[in-house]
C-alpha cells in the first residue's frame, strides 16, 4: 500500500525512463503527478513508464497520466506504457486509454 518511483534519462537523452512499483491510487497519485511534472519541466520528451512492478492502478492514476500526456502532446511527444500486469492493463483497455497511450507488452 505504497508506491515507489524511479526515473532516469534514456540512453540517447531523448526519452524519460520511469518505473513504478507498488500501488497507484488516491493516496499515491499526487506523488506521481509531482514527479512526472518535474521531469517535464526539465525537458519535454517522450516518457516510457515501466509498469512491470505496479500491482494496482485506478482512475486516480489514469488521471495523472492523462494530465501529463496533454502537456507532452503540445510538443508531439508520447507516453509509452511498458509491460503492465494483466489487471493494470485491463483498466487501460476498458477505459479505451490503450488507444491514447502507446501500450507495449
Amino acid at each position, binding site marked *: 500500500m505504497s508506491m515507489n518511483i524511479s526515473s532516469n534519462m534514456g540512453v540517447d537523452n531523448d526519452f524519460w525512463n520511469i518505473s513504478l512499483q507498488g*500501488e497507484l*491510487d*488516491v493516496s499515491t497519485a499526487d506523488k506521481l503527478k509531482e514527479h512526472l511534472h518535474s521531469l517535464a519541466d526539465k525537458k519535454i520528451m517522450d516518457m516510457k513508464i515501466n509498469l512491470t512492478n505496479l500491482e*494496482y492502478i*485506478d482512475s486516480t492514476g489514469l488521471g*495523472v497520466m492523462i494530465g501529463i500526456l496533454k502537456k507532452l502532446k503540445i510538443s508531439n511527444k508520447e507516453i509509452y506504457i511498458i509491460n503492465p500486469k494483466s*489487471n493494470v492493463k485491463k483498466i487501460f483497455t476498458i*477505459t479505451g486509454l490503450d488507444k491514447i497511450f502507446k501500450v507495449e507488452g
Partner: protein
Amino acid sequence: MIYETIKMEITSNPEYVGIIRLTTSGIANKIGFSIDDIEDMKVAVSEACTNAIKHSNDNVFYIKYEMLENGLTIEIQDKGKGYDIESTIKPDLSNPKENGLGLFIIQTLMDEVSIESKDKEGTIIKMTKYLGVDI
C-alpha cells in the same frame, strides 16, 4: 431474506483505501470469487471510496458488504454534499480528461450498479458482482 454482513465506518483519509482493498479481497476470496473478479471488485470499491473521500466533503464514510448465496453486494455511503447524478457526463475518448472515469470504471467492472444521491444528504452507491458470471 437476511444476509450476513460486514459493515465498516472509516475516516475519510486516502491512506485507508488500500486497507479497504485488502478487506474486500479477503471477503471476495472467502465467497469464492476468481482472482480476476477480485481484482475488478478492488478497483470498483476503491473508485467509490475515492469519490466519497474527494467529493462528499464529509469526514467519514461507510461500507457494507452483503454476502449473497451467489455473489457479493457492496454499498459505499457518505452523508456528504451529494451531487446531481443526471449531470455527470460520460468519458469522451476523443477528448480524454483527468477526471470523470471513476463511475464509468465501476459500471464496467460490476454486474449491477445503482446510485442514489441527494443534495446535502449524501450518496449511496450499491454494486453487486455475481459468482461465475461474465458480462
